[in-house]
């Protein structure tokens, strides 16, 4: 109940505060020069596609992206998945997918199928399972309470 109330409040706030695309652009400003969405996507695609990228840099890029107020575009997601392949870390790839799904927020019903449709060829090519295939869209294991250890 608390969550639904908070969700409704957030939606109301969003409407009244007017978070528009211009504001997103403002966030992405780098020292006065405005960066368009395409340039932003290209920058991160290039970042993940760099030769000799290591796990630290992949994690750094993904942590940064998932901390921003945006949904990564399919191109960035694919590029990130390929970076995971290059550093041979499938766990990272699955977590990255989960993170991108989580970034869809309350638009998950519309955005996530779109993203999935766009990145399916890459997923097939690399052999990365989707979250649904793994059964990670629902809680699988429960944590033991620290008081029972």
């Amino acid at each position: 109940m608390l969550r639904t109330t908070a969700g409704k409040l957030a939606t109301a706030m969003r409407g009244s505060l007017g978070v528009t695309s211009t504001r997103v652009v403002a966030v992405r400003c780098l020292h006065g020069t405005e960066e368009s969405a395409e340039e932003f996507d290209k920058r991160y695609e290039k970042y993940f596609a760099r030769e000799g990228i290591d796990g630290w840099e992949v994690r750094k890029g993904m942590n940064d992206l998932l901390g921003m107020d945006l949904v990564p575009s399919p191109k960035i997601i694919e590029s990130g998945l390929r970076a995971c392949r290059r550093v041979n870390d499938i766990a990272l790839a699955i977590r990255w997918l989960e993170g991108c799904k989580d970034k869809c927020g309350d638009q998950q019903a519309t955005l996530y199928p779109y993203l999935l449709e766009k990145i399916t060829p890459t997923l097939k090519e690399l052999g990365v399972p989707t979250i649904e295939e793994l059964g990670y869209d629902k809680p699988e294991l429960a944590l033991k309470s620290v008081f029972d250890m």
Partner: protein
Amino acid sequence: MMNSLRCAGCRLPGAAAAVAAAAAAAKTASPSHLATADLRIFRRFTHHDGTRAMSGTREIVGYGVNGSPNYIDCADFPFPAIRYREVTSEICAMREKELGDWKKLSLEEKKSLYRHSFCQTYSEFQYFTPEWKLAVALGLWSVAIGLIITLLSNAMIYDELPITYDDEHRQAQLRRIIQLQMNPITGISSKWDYSQNKWK
């Protein structure tokens, strides 16, 4: 080698190669203890050393929070500094297999690789638990206990209120305050009209 350097806080691009070259050069020039001494220069002593010791044989895979090798499941920061589980021979074998084609890995293997790196999935750590009920209950209980203590103290511990609390004494006090012109700017006396001897 790479990993031990990273554990030592060494994270410059190409540093591993440079250090390895330096070590090799030192090895050829002098006995091996000098080479280890050279390496020790790169060791930083930080307040994360305790955490690092506790992280055991877990592989350090990122910078983490303030450079501390901690594990945390959090949507704002989904890739923590260390892998969740310690290295075992089984997981080493599986990671060898991971180097090859991922399509050849079974779903179980992919899952166990994931669980090696991460403790909980997104849907698990974001699952809404009914823990808030306990928090609310504890809050209400403490308020209730506080109220009971207040009522009991009033009934059984404290004396009767002094005589100055009755209406007559308080009226006299107010009269005195006005006569002494206390708080004449914004306070009680500013509301008293002294020329007509009544409230404004």
